[in-house]
């Protein structure tokens, strides 16, 4: 294993320390429990937005903390969901009295840890909504699996909900917006190589020199299909077709029922892509794939989308939700409407997304 790290046992802490030194204008980092917190916290008079998950997906989530996006991020160990005390302390630090929206990627561990945190916060009288992002079309059904995983739509949800909080959306409206983004967003990824977690020091999975993994998870979980390596156009076509042709996906997601004071399972159905749609696209490096190659993928994606009458009106091409140094790419398409576009375009100042005044 070759990495620019000092301590394989807990690289997250050293990386967070560097991040704190690098971006004192945008964020602070607290330790024991670990979380990244926006400079202006607490979020006085507005909803606070929190996310988190295992480390190793940088810039997700710490790189999205700052102005106009996340108020706090809770990084777990590499590829391991954070613990409830992290979210509990982070939420207490950023809550400005208008409640906390927790954006949670749909992995069993993340969901459970954020749920426990929400319970702890509610016991303290803090209003919390957990919204789950489950946009990975590589997972076909939800009755025989833990359901679709959270991928790139998370980034758009964090951006849009952060802007909505700044605009003054209240907690329920912001949670509803987050759910809307989730049912409009779909993603799928693939890997050419495996990542190596610092703790293990060896590749998470073996993959032949002539093989690729389609539908890979961002923790190096084996994907939906192993096949011979194909060229960039063909790979892009596989991913894009899965996303664009994905049929209405129905599943139950846990939601907080304010009246009942408990979590209830609610049926949620994804939208499908239609000719005429305007979308935000992410062409995302899994970490080790260089930017140059992402442009080849973008070129083909653009062509395929146009062919379906879908226009890409905004795009992110680079490193947004990674898997350490894995080589590969994931594509995310999020259908927009006026509200989503307005909020996406709003100013943001974080280490990884930075635009507007």
């Amino acid at each position, binding site marked *: 294993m070759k990495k620019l790290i000092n301590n394989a046992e807990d690289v997250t802490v050293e990386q967070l320390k560097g991040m704190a030194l690098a971006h004192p204008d945008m964020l602070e980092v607290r330790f024991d*429990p670990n979380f990244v917190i926006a400079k202006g916290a607490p979020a006085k008079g507005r909803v606070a937005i929190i996310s988190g998950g*295992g480390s190793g997906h940088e810039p997700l989530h710490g790189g999205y903390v700052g102005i106009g996006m996340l108020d706090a991020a809770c990084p*777990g*160990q*590499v*590829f*391991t*969901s*954070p*613990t*409830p*005390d992290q979210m509990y302390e982070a939420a207490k630090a950023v809550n400005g009295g208008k409640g906390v929206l927790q954006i949670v990627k749909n*992995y*069993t*561990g993340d969901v*459970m*840890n954020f*749920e*426990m945190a929400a319970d702890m916060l509610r016991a303290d009288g803090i209003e919390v909504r957990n919204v789950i992002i489950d946009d990975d079309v*590589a*997972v076909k059904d939800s*009755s*025989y*699996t*833990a359901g679709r*995983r959270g991928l790139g739509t998370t980034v758009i949800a964090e951006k849009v909900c952060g802007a909505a909080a700044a605009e003054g959306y209240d907690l329920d409206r912001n949670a509803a917006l987050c759910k809307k983004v989730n049912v409009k967003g779909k993603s799928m990824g693939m890997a050419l190589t495996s990542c190596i*977690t610092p*703790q*293990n020091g060896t590749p*998470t*999975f073996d993959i032949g020199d002539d093989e690729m993994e389609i539908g890979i*998870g961002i*923790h*190096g*979980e*084996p*994907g*939906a299909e192993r096949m011979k390596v194909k060229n960039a156009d063909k790979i892009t076509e596989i991913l894009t077709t899965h996303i664009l042709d994905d049929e209405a996906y129905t599943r139950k997601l846990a939601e907080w029922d304010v009246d009942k004071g408990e979590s209830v399972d609610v049926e949620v159905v994804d939208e499908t892509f239609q000719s005429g749609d305007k979308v935000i696209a992410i062409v995302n490096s899994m970490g080790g794939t260089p930017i140059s190659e992402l442009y080849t993928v973008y070129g083909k994606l653009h062509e395929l989308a146009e062919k379906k009458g879908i226009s890409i009106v905004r795009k992110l091409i680079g490193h947004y939700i990674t898997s350490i140094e894995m080589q590969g790419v994931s594509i995310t398409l999020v259908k927009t409407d006026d509200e989503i576009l307005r909020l996406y375009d709003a100013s943001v100042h974080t280490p990884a997304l930075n635009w507007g005044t």
Partner: protein
Amino acid sequence: MLTSEHITTWIRKSADEMRDNRGYLTELDAAIGDADHGNNMDRGYKAVLEKLPDDNDVGAILKAVAMALISKVGGAAGPLYGTMFLQAANALKGKEALSSEDVELLLKSSVDGIVMRGKAHAGEKTILDSLIPAHEAYKEARAAGAELIACLDAATHAAEEGMKATIPMIATKGRASYLGERSRDHQDPGATSTYLIIKTLYEAASEGDAT
């Protein structure tokens, strides 16, 4: 009876097993998950050892275990095992020693905790697939009049069988479920760590001459 010392020994023995099987559990997780289960459990039990209270209340001990696991493990295993110990702690609050019946309650509340948190059933290739058989074997042995240690022996064997029975299963919960068919032919890491937890309970009881 299992004294609070037996319980402390159990936890220490579990910690040793997690340390010794760190690589093994992680390997199992690499095959069908994300290669961290051994690291998670070892990190968690290390934290548990630091937080073990000098207390005769078994409930208090188990609660300390729960809180340490919840705040140090993360992933799926953290809230699952955390909730498991928390449920057991609630069920046994105030007890300074556990009767054979209490141990059955410990196992039952453990199952309840895992189900409550993870919403899985038997046969989904999870922790439950060694935990439920352990609980049932214990219950049956006790109903048939066996001694505490013999009941735990039966539970350990059932946990081991249950663990092995996860090999042909297709996972439908947790990270391994994404593999569908490809999750077959691999032993579930969580069912394996659960086996170690049951086995060390038996060992703590038998070595400590529990009656």
